[in-house]
């Protein structure tokens, strides 16, 4: 059994704003196993990026984080900034959506990769440079010797993203957080980068948390996926399972809304209503206002429970959730298995 690299326990993130406190992440718990590619999917504003930033300790001062983020057993929340800095780029790395802002426009790409190495490892510049070259080759930069000295603007978007990935993997991190890494790329380039990530995971056994809104990307590359809505984690399952048999009403609606050649134009199934205001979120399940199966009980937050050993769901429609909320009562009522 592989170990757990990342464990989130009841993580809550709030932002202080002029209008009040925005509850961006509400009671999220999940575990990511070593070597797996875990996808975190949801639409804009669902809190997936906030969650990743909280894990890396990259949230602004206006944010308050509660709960525990255990990485290799240690709680990252409340770590000294200096210690977090040591971990970042070394044991945990992050790849962002826009490669142009992740790379310093003034410095050659090769140097930026080498700098990540020297920042965390006690090696001389020659060794670092050699390793950087090897990394550039590994991520598929053609003629890495020649391009080592290029400034980022000389590279295309796809190439830049590869450099960013090289930087992220330079010190062979245990965990890579990738926030919409291919969203800004053309579809043919995206295919290449996804291929690259898959290959790298295979070779280096890196654990990857992939954040995206694109269900296609999830289907292609992830082993397991967690679905988020308005700051809440509503469903977690293996990828095949999520697409084959989604259980949470939001996941079902999301999949139904995807454009499909067989549907007539004008007839895509939409989710009525809008995302709730996160300053004054509704009590309980935040999808309740738009859920076709809403019940009175939904004003209480349904806990995330194991529908099957591999499939978690947070919904009062699920027997597992009901049991998790009231084990004694369910047992007394002799609830159906």
């Amino acid at each position, binding site marked *: 059994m592989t170990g757990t690299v990342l464990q989130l326990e009841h993580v809550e993130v709030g932002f202080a704003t002029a209008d009040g406190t925005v509850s961006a992440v509400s009671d999220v718990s999940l575990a990511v196993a070593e070597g797996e590619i875990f996808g975190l999917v949801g639409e804009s504003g669902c809190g997936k990026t906030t969650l990743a930033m909280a894990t890396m300790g990259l949230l602004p001062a206006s944010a308050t984080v509660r709960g525990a983020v255990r990485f290799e057993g240690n709680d990252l929340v409340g770590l000294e900034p200096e210690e977090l800095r040591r971990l970042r780029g070394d044991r945990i790395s992050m790849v962002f959506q826009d490669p142009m802002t992740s790379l310093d426009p003034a410095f050659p790409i090769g140097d930026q990769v080498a700098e990540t190495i020297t920042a965390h490892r006690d090696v001389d510049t020659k060794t670092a440079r050699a390793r950087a070259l090897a990394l550039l080759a590994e991520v598929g930069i053609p003629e890495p010797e020649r391009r080592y000295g290029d400034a980022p603007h000389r590279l295309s978007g796809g190439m830049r993203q590869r450099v960013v990935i090289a930087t992220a993997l330079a010190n062979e991190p245990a965990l890579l957080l990738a926030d919409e890494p291919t969203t800004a790329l053309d*579809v*043919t380039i995206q295919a290449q980068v996804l291929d690259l990530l898959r290959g790298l995971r295979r070779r280096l056994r890196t654990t990857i948390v992939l954040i995206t809104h694109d269900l296609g990307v999830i289907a292609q590359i992830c082993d397991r996926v967690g679905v988020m809505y308005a700051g809440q984690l509503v469903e977690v399952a293996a990828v095949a399972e999520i697409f084959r048999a989604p259980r949470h009403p939001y996941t079902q609606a999301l999949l139904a809304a995807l454009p499909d050649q067989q549907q007539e134009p004008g007839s*895509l199934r939409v989710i009525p209503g809008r995302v709730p205001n996160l300053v004054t979120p509704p009590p309980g399940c935040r999808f309740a206002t738009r859920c076709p199966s809403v019940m009175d009980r939904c004003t209480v937050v349904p806990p995330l429970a194991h529908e099957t050993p591999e499939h978690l769901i947070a919904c009062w429609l699920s027997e597992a959730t009901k049991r998790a909320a009231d084990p004694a009562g369910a047992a007394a009522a002799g609830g159906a298995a």
Partner: protein
Amino acid sequence: MSGQVQAVDRVAPVPAAPPILEVTGLVKHFSTDRGLLGSGATLHAVDGVDLRIHPGEVLAVVGESGSGKSTLARCILRLIDPTAGRIVFDGRDVTELRGRQLAAFRQQVQPVFQDPFSSIDPRWRVGKSVAEALDAFQIGTKHERRERVLDLLDRVGLDPSLAGRRPHELSGGQRQRVGIAAALAPSPKLIVADEPVSALDVSVQAQVLNLLADLQRDLGLAIVFVAHDLAVVEHMSHRTAVMYLGRIVETGPTETVFRDPRHPYTKALLEAIPHPDPERQLTGGGLQGEIPSPIAPPSGCRFRTRCPVAIDRCATDDPAMTAFGDGHAAACHVAAATLPTD
């Protein structure tokens, strides 16, 4: 397999009607100003495009970055002036129009833009943005304009009372609807939509696509739908044109192009789509390399540097469009060779 062809209930284009828009040999070059040594190279954004669209037809123009599709859209809208070629709208040559005649053209052809956040003036109230074309073209009285704005908002599925709000109070999807309402205001015949749903969430995309389809049906609009998301295109358009590096490489009825792509680039594009279906994994033998620079496009066939089936001829001869019947055509020597010779 998404190859199931269904009899879809779209507005069928009137077969006998002449095209409402006909673009011939459109070229748009930009001169780049690189380096200290003054004006540099020429960027061949659009390099010889022919296309035709009929009233009530939805034509998708598909391509990745560097394909020139956005430049093409702006040329059609006359937001930029083409370097060469002709644009004929409703029987009139509009390539060189200026002043009042250009204004008359503008009333008939309206844009819908990609970014809901920057395509509406953040300081203007929503109603004013929707009415902009009415004010500029002096359509109707003040009272009539007000009525029309409310009617348009309703038509795009927004509460008319939103007319008094500012854009930042609206969500991305709502703003995009405002943009559509603004485009419909002067009752255009042709809409040029440049990636109208790319910046929206999936569930919001669905809403806006439904809206566009309904409007198209109700108003008999012709739409040039520029996109990079093939799933959206397959769903929304009658015909599809695939662009690569400033040229159209394949065109035809959408179902045909998707079911039976002839050009290697179209095939690669279709194969690269990550399907939201774990059973259909990308084969991993996809298109390699990057798109060449539009400043120095490859000789002969532009796609040859990445083409898995390129032959010698591709380096020397620029392939012409070969017809495969039923309005389906592709510009490829290898594909042309598959046709039985007479």
